[in-house]
C-alpha cells in the first residue's frame, strides 16, 4: 500500500509542475503591456519600471521562470498590487472559509443523496423513484448562480428564516451550502440509485435477507457497502466542480473565501493575487484527487490487493 501511495505521489509531480507553468504563463498572455494593464495608461514611467522590476518582467523569459519556481519553492507567491499584503497571507486568511463551505456542501450532498438514492432503488419504478429522479434531473440542470438567488428570495426575503448573505453563525452557511451542494447531491442520488440497483438482486443480499435481517439494515449496510465504491470516484471527480462552483457561490453570498478573493482580484487587475489564488485552488484539487485515488484503493479490498501485488519489486 505504501508503495502504491508513493507511486501515485510521483505521478502527480508532472501535473503540479504543469499547473505552475500554466499559471506562470498567464501573466504573459495579457494583451499589450501587462504593467500598463495593471497600473493604467496614465501611470508614471518610474512607477511602471518599479513594478516591472518587482514582477521580474525585466529579465528574459527563462530566467523569469526559474526565479518564479525558486520563489514558489520558498512559499513566496508575491505581493498583492492593491493592498501590498503578501499573496500567501491573503490566501491563508480566506482559505478556511472556502474549506468550511465545501466540506459542509459535501456533507449536505451526501446526506441528501445516499438515503434518497437507496430508497429510489429499493422502490424501483414507483412514484417515489420517478419523483426523486425528476428532482435529481432538476438539480443537475439548475445552475448554482440561479439556485442561489432563488433560495435567497424564498428563504431569506419571503420567509425571513435565514440571512441573505455574509459570514457568521451556522445559519449563514445553510443557503450557500445548499446552493453549492445541490448539483452534487443530484449526481450522487443518481449514482447511488444506479449502483444499489446493480447489487439489489445479488446473492449476498438474498443471503442477508434469508438470515432474517431487517430490510433497512440490508439496504443501508450491505447494499451500501458495495454501492460506496463508485460513489467515491464520482466524489473525487466532482470535487473540482465543487471548488469552481465555490467561486460563484461565494460571490453570490458575499462569502469571504478564496473564490470571492479571486474575482475581486480580477476586477482590480491584481494579477499576482489572481495567479496565487488560481495556483492554490488547482493544487488543492490535485491534492484532493490524490487522496481520493488512495482512498478508493483502500476501501476496495480487491483493488488494494491488486495495488500491493503490482508494487511488489
Amino acid at each position: 500500500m505504501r508503495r502504491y501511495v508513493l507511486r501515485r505521489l510521483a505521478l502527480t509531480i508532472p501535473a503540479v509542475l504543469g499547473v505552475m507553468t500554466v499559471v506562470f504563463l498567464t501573466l504573459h498572455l495579457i494583451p499589450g503591456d501587462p504593467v500598463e494593464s495593471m497600473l493604467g495608461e496614465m501611470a508614471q514611467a518610474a512607477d511602471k519600471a518599479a513594478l516591472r522590476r518587482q514582477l521580474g518582467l525585466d529579465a528574459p523569459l527563462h530566467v523569469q521562470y526559474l526565479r518564479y519556481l525558486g520563489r514558489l519553492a520558498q512559499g513566496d507567491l508575491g505581493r498583492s498590487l492593491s493592498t501590498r499584503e503578501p499573496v500567501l497571507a491573503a490566501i491563508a486568511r480566506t482559505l478556511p472559509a472556502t474549506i468550511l463551505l465545501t466540506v459542509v456542501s459535501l456533507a449536505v450532498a451526501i446526506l441528501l443523496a445516499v438515503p434518497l438514492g437507496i430508497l429510489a432503488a429499493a422502490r424501483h419504478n414507483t412514484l417515489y423513484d420517478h419523483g426523486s429522479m425528476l428532482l435529481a434531473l432538476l438539480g443537475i440542470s439548475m445552475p448554482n448562480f440561479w439556485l442561489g438567488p432563488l433560495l435567497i428570495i424564498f428563504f431569506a426575503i419571503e420567509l425571513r428564516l435565514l440571512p441573505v448573505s455574509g459570514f457568521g453563525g451556522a445559519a449563514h452557511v445553510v443557503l450557500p451550502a445548499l446552493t453549492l451542494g445541490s448539483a452534487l447531491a443530484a449526481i450522487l442520488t443518481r449514482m447511488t440509485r444506479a449502483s444499489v440497483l446493480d447489487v439489489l438482486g445479488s446473492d449476498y443480499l438474498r443471503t442477508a435477507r434469508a438470515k432474517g435481517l431487517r430490510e433497512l439494515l440490508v439496504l443501508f449496510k450491505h447494499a451500501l457497502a458495495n454501492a460506496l465504491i463508485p460513489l467515491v470516484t464520482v466524489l473525487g471527480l466532482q470535487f473540482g466542480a465543487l471548488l469552481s462552483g465555490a467561486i460563484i457561490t461565494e460571490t453570490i453570498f458575499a462569502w469571504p473565501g478564496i473564490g470571492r478573493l479571486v474575482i475581486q482580484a480580477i476586477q482590480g487587475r491584481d494579477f499576482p493575487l489572481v495567479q496565487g489564488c488560481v495556483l492554490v485552488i488547482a493544487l488543492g484539487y490535485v491534492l484532493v484527487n490524490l487522496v481520493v485515488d488512495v482512498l478508493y484503493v483502500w476501501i476496495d479490498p480487491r483493488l488494494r490487493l491488486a495495488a500491493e501485488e503490482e508494487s511488489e519489486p
Partner: protein
Amino acid sequence: MRLRLPRLGLKLWVGGGLTLALLATALLAPWLAPHSPTAQHLFEGLERPGRAHLLGQDRLGRDILSRILHGTRISVYVGVVTVLLAAGIGTLLGALAGYFRGSLDELLMRLVDIFLAFPGILLAIALMGVLGPSLGNVILALVVMGWVGYARLVRGQVLAARQLDYVTAAQALGARPRRVIARHLLPNVLSPVIVEATFGMAGAILAEAGLSFLGLGVQPPTPSWGSMLNEGRHYLLVAPHLTLFPGFAIMLTILGFNFLGDGLHDLLNPRQRR
C-alpha cells in the same frame, strides 16, 4: 393510414424538442421579440410583469422577454462555436495520439493531465481575468478548457479500434495513415463524440452564463442570460422577476441538451442504457 413515429424514446423526443425550440428561437429572435432588447425606458425601470411587458422590465426599463429571446442567440452561438472548435481540435489530436502512440501520445497525455488539474471553469475564469471580458475571449477560454475531454475520449477509442481487423486490412492494402484515420477510424469512433458534444453544448452554454454572471463574459448592453442574472441579483428584494425568468431559460436549455445527450447515448449504445 396511421402515422407512426419512430421509436426514439421519451428522452430523445423531449430533448430534441427543447433543443429545436431553442435553435428556432435563436434564429427567429428579432421577429419573436415584442420589443427591442436594448431600448431603454428609464421611467419604467424594474416594472413588474404586466400586459405590455409580459416578463417585466429591467433596471433600465428594457423588456425582459425580448432580452431573453435575443439572449438565446448568444447562448447558441457560444455553444455551437465552442463545441465545434473544441471537438475538432480534441478529435484531431486524440486520433493522432491514439494512432501513432509513442512520444506524441505521451506528450498529449501529460498535457491533458495538466489541463485536467484545473477544476471546472477555473482555467476559463483565470484566462478571462487576463484576456479581458469579450465574447471572442469567452469562446477562446472555453475551447482551451474544453478540447481536453474530446482528445482523451477519441484517443481511447482509436487506441482500441486500431487493433481491429478492418484497420489492419486497410493498412495491408497500403492505405496511408491519413486515409486510415479519416476514412476508417474516425467514422467508427464518432458516436461517443456526438454524445459528448451534446453534453458539451450544455456545458459551454452554462459556462458562458457563469462567466457573464461573474462579470467576466459578454459585456452590456448585449443581452446574455448570465449577465441578466448578474444585474438581477442586486434587486432580489424589489424585483425578483429579473432573476426568475433568465434563470428559467438557462435551466430549460440545459435540461434539453441533457435529455438529448442521454437519449442519443441510449440510441447509439443500445446495449448500455443509462
